[in-house]
């Protein structure tokens, strides 16, 4: 079955991030000047403005900063899969947050503050998405 959900169209600096996911690595930029995490990928640190930033492999662990369970959706490919959990995950070691889906558990069990860990979902030959599951398979 062909994958019918929205896919990214990465160009520029972000390509490194998406290539990392393909290799099952969560590459998050870190600023060598202020040590802040940066998400999404850029050519400068939005915290201090320094350009000395580099991609580093992240542990893929963090906690749920907020979430919403979609019972209705008009997003292509998702509308038939409700309910699903959309979340903002705050990654360990900084202030970066990323949007993701919480998978591998019932939406009813998801809570703010829950510890989660990345899993890499190959959705097409070209793209792998970083989804998150509860730590310890809660």
């Amino acid at each position: 079955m062909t994958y019918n959900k929205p896919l990214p169209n990465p160009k520029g600096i972000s390509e490194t991030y998406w290539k990392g996911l393909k290799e099952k690595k969560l590459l998050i930029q870190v600023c060598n000047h202020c040590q802040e995490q940066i998400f999404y990928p850029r050519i400068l640190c939005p915290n201090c403005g320094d350009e000395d930033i580099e991609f580093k492999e992240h542990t893929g662990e963090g906690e749920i900063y907020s979430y919403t369970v979609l019972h209705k959706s008009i997003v292509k490919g998702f509308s038939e899969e409700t309910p699903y959990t959309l979340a903002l995950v705050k990654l360990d070691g900084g202030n970066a947050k990323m949007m993701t889906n919480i998978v591998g558990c019932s939406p009813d069990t998801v809570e703010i503050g829950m510890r989660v860990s990345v899993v890499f979902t190959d959705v097409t030959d070209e793209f792998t998405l970083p989804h998150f599951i509860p730590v310890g398979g809660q």
Partner: protein
Amino acid sequence: MSIFNDVAIVAVAESDLGIVPHLNSADLMAQASIRALKEAGLSKHDVDGLFSTSAHYSMPTLTLAEYMGITPKYMDATSIGGSSFVSLVAHAAQAISNGLCEVALIAYGSTQRTDGGGLANISEPFNHEAPYGNFDPISSYALVAQRHMYEFGTTRNQLSEVAVAARKWASMNSKAFKREPLTLDDVSNSTLISTPLTKLDCCLITDGGAALVLTTKEKAKSLNKEPIYIWGYGESTTHRSIVSMPNLVETAAKLSGLSAYEMAGVGPSDIDVVQLYDAFSINVILFLEDLGFCPKGEGGSFVANGAIAPGGRLPVNTNGGGLSYCHPGMYGLFTVIEGVRQLRKECGERQIDNCRIALANGNGGVLSSQVTMILSNEAGA
């Protein structure tokens, strides 16, 4: 001191609102424009400054100028989401103050409902959100509401209070799209879309347009309507997409509000009527906090027990708001229009007594941009 003391708002108008299948977005802009100009006693030949933005037209001031046959000396099409039109009122005032134009027309029109009911949008896709099924904008606001509930104990019923208060005001506005009675349970138990938000936490999807005319304080003396003055103004942004919002429970309205209060030389306790961009119920709670009407985290308890409904402690969204009056996609200008009408004492059954100072706050994107304007029927010092 306001930098706009020599400028006045001299006309406001809506186009036909609701479901308007026989007009397109430019028709609606022009219809509202003609009504506003007539209200002031002006014609399109007087207009030398044009201000618009659009989710339908890529060059909206050009579209409007061409449609109406206006050759402006000055234009601005600032695009910062639904708050744009509050921003454009201030940008127009600034242009008049600086002598760049004398009669500024700000016009908006959108056939969002007739076009199919989705949010009209020429936005680029977000690579870091779209693949996860972000049902924008509702899910972005739902993430904010969920976090607000987690941090401050805001309740489902408190969100519903916002929608019920809007409906009570709308029942006194003949132009409002939804006027039938609504209960807290109706809102809480309506179709669950993106937790914690239900269908009735979401603004309407209507067609509609609006226009506003500004000119010099001097020229305003010879026009039809009581002039309304801009005492204070501020704008800011914290992010474009929700993944980059630094703190989900604090918006840029904190900064835009501080700027506006400082310019006006007033504070929240001086405000007689408040018009907030209620794209979703949670917005009102956040903006009441960020604009200083209550401490951070207490917005939920502030709106409880009908406190922002007719007869409550603070009149908020007296036209019925985006939740019950109209919402063609970019609601900002309607906040200013209702503020102006309250200050002119034209609101009939829903008129606030002794209304001297009004606050309008525009919201754009997903709580991304905030624009605060403080208006009065007295000329600034």
